């Protein structure tokens, strides 16, 4: 059930109506858990068994962690939780990839080793809820959060449907206290949630899906197209992935708001970043924070000198790339960003002047867009074709129909939208505008989204991770 479908609208209206009709807070949480389970099962009923099975280990480990005193035993318990979670993730997500890689390597070495072929089958949202489960066990181990006693509360934390399948990756300290607070229906939250949802719908349907229709043929067969078209497709993909993922996040945050929950923001105008490290403070913020707190810092962070810091950064980015998918293109993408961060560390601090920031921003945007080529291309061969076409002027076909105009308009709308979104005066301005005008503007926004919905909706890109 995608957020942008009529089926989801029907599900949401029922879930919302029953949630706020029920008087007691506990009953509401149980209803929310049941609705979330139903939402997840709409993809496959078996997924629910997997998620409950794998995350119940963390629930039990956390309870045990609070009773056990010895540091060695506590370390073993948290290692058990992390191993099981990563093991499930590795099995479903990476087994086929590693077997393929092993097969390729043995073939290259001329060894005749029978390596089985595995078919990849990725349960929806596995990468996201696995990281949430790991952060729960680790935070209980570190004493940052108390273990949840009530299994329904833990189930709501993991299963809460707005963030279940594609994040944001929510920390237990951000969400669990909200479960303890009884909720009261609030029109202001509903209104804000609705506007956020509409904003996300616009980004996903009007920007991302329309751009995707125009540029998909380019990535399917990049050798056919000229350099200008390749540049348009690369920039267009930057818009598509932003619109798709941040649009999904906005919808998730908006829906959560209407149920009285606040989820962490996941994007902060990433294409206005002034440097690669600034980009990662603005893009998929919940993942960046997770990697920083549970991978980069435990590896040593920046506490052991510049060389070790660079190695830690590199490792974090490579594994972060691999998290996105079991394909060499993602590994290369993560490595590429590791290189960008390493190169940034070499730039003298004296270069960080206000006059040079626009140049830094432009170079960062360019570097990030080129990085998306690795992310989107179907193979390393296609990556080479596209990069060659970007650098060496090449003749070929252009985008069909008014595809170029659509992509250009989407690029401009994205950059302008991000710039406008940085203005802090929005809430005060919206409070001053009379309610009928706000209503008219929002109604117009909904109408525009409906009118510009492309013929075929695309699934969310990050559902594949």
């Amino acid at each position, binding site marked *: 059930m995608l957020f942008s479908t009529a089926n989801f609208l029907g599900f949401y209206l029922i879930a919302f109506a029953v949630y706020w009709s029920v008087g007691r807070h506990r009953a509401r949480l149980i209803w929310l858990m049941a609705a979330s389970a139903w939402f997840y099962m709409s993809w496959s009923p078996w997924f629910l068994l997997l998620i409950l099975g794998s995350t119940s280990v963390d629930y039990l480990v956390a309870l045990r962690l609070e009773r056990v005193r010895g540091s060695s035993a506590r370390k073993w318990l948290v290692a058990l939780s992390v191993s099981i979670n990563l093991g499930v993730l590795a099995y479903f997500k990476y087994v086929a990839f590693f077997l393929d890689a092993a097969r390729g390597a043995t073939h290259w070495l001329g060894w005749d080793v029978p390596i089985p072929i595995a078919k990849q089958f990725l349960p929806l949202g596995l990468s996201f809820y696995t990281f949430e489960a790991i952060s729960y066990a680790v935070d209980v181990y570190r004493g940052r959060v108390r273990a949840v006693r009530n299994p329904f509360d833990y189930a709501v934390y993991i299963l809460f449907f707005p963030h279940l399948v594609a994040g944001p990756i929510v920390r237990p300290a951000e969400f669990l206290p909200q479960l303890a607070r009884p909720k009261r229906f*609030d*029109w*202001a939250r*509903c*209104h*804000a949630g*609705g506007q956020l949802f509409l904003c996300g719908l616009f980004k996903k349907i009007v920007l991302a899906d329309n751009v995707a229709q125009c540029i998909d043929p380019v990535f399917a067969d990049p050798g056919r197209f000229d350099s200008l078209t390749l540049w348009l497709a690369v920039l267009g993909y930057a818009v598509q992935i932003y619109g798709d993922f941040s649009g999904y996040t906005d919808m998730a945050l908006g829906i959560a708001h209407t149920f009285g929950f606040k989820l962490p923001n996941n994007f902060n105008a990433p294409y206005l970043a002034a440097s690669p490290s600034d980009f990662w403070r603005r893009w998929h913020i919940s993942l960046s924070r997770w990697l920083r707190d549970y991978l980069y810092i435990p590896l040593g962070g920046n506490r052991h000198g510049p060389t070790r810091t660079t190695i830690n950064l590199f490792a974090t980015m490579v594994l972060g790339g691999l998290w996105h998918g079991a394909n060499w293109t993602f590994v290369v993408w993560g490595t590429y960003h590791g290189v960008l961060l390493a190169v940034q560390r070499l730039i003298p601090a004296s270069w960080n002047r206000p006059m040079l920031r626009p140049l830094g921003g432009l170079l960062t945007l360019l570097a990030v867009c080129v990085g998306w080529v690795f992310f989107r291309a179907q193979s390393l061969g296609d990556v080479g074709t596209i990069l060659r076409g970007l650098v060496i002027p090449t003749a070929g076909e252009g985008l069909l129909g008014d595809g170029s105009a659509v992509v250009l308009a989407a690029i401009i709308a994205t950059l302008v939208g991000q710039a406008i979104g940085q203005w802090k005066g929005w809430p005060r301005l919206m*409070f001053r505008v009379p*309610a*009928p005008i*706000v*209503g*008219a503007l*929002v*109604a*117009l926004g*909904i*109408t525009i989204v*409906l*009118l*510009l*919905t492309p*013929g075929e909706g695309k699934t969310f890109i990050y559902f594949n991770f």
Partner: protein
Amino acid sequence: MCSRRTAFTRRSRAAVVWTIGLFLLGQFALGLVLDYATPLTRFPSARAVLEFTAKEPSPPAVVFLGSSRTGAAIHPAEMNALLATEVRRDPAPRVINAAAPGGDAISAEFVLNRLLDSGVKPELVVMEVWPEAFNARSPFLIQHVVRQFNWEDVPSQAVPATRAKAGRLFAQARLVPGYTHRRQIVRDVKMWAIELLRREPASHRPPTDKLAAGPLDWDDVIRAAAPGPESDLTELSQVGARETVRKWLTPYQLAGPATEALERILTRCRAEGIRVLLVDMPACSAHRDEYTPEIRAQFTRFIDRLTIDHGCRFVAVNDWLPDSQYIDALHVSHEGGREFTRRFTRDVVVEALQK
């Protein structure tokens, strides 16, 4: 602080109510515009036919009405060339293929009424008739729900549409027309913007239906839809007959809005002095085999009554082509269409025009 929060809450509630109200009102207003001010936006294939006809130097002598089966079977250019030699008249009679994808008597009535109201009066109307099109649970209601039905059709068509599994689409088309007709609306807005910028009418508004309908487009459509040379056409048509035709005929009861539309067509044509030929277009053997004796009996009784009551003629031609001339259970191939057109022109149209 408390009063400010209360004011904020009241204001938010008002904004939500205004949003819902204005959105529904806007969709209703848009629906009225689409229904009454620009009805052809919803039916772009009909608009293409009317625009094409308006540009013709003289009114057509023959108008073909029906579904994509008629679209595929009748080649106007071929027919025009034959009529120019077979019928001694100046100017030579011309035909237009005004068939619509998923068309039946209901869409035919829509197109014919607009043609007649615009002053285009043919000598002869050839109307496709086949049992499926007059089933009470018509498979074509889903097209009319999107293309033609207005609010005034809701009382009479809501139940038949629901029975034909088009109820949800009907509700969507009435309540959120901006979403249902979005592609046509966006295309129309683009064309108007181009006209405004160029300060001249758009030379041709390409229809947005995939089975684009103007008299000249069926050829491209059939060529594109034809299976590869290695395909077993007989098997394809048999599979199609089982999966599609049988579904459309089960259960079968000859009744419903299409029968009433055909009666109105015949009544108006008679009043305007226009002759009507009812024709069951070519059907492959697997398709014809799906007509049980009960279906044939109902259909024959219906047609016989029409010919008596309205003075029209029925021509049975559905077995004129071999199975090798079909690309699926319903549509003839390009060559099949040419062959049928030649024979139909010589054996039926010429005789009808010379009477």
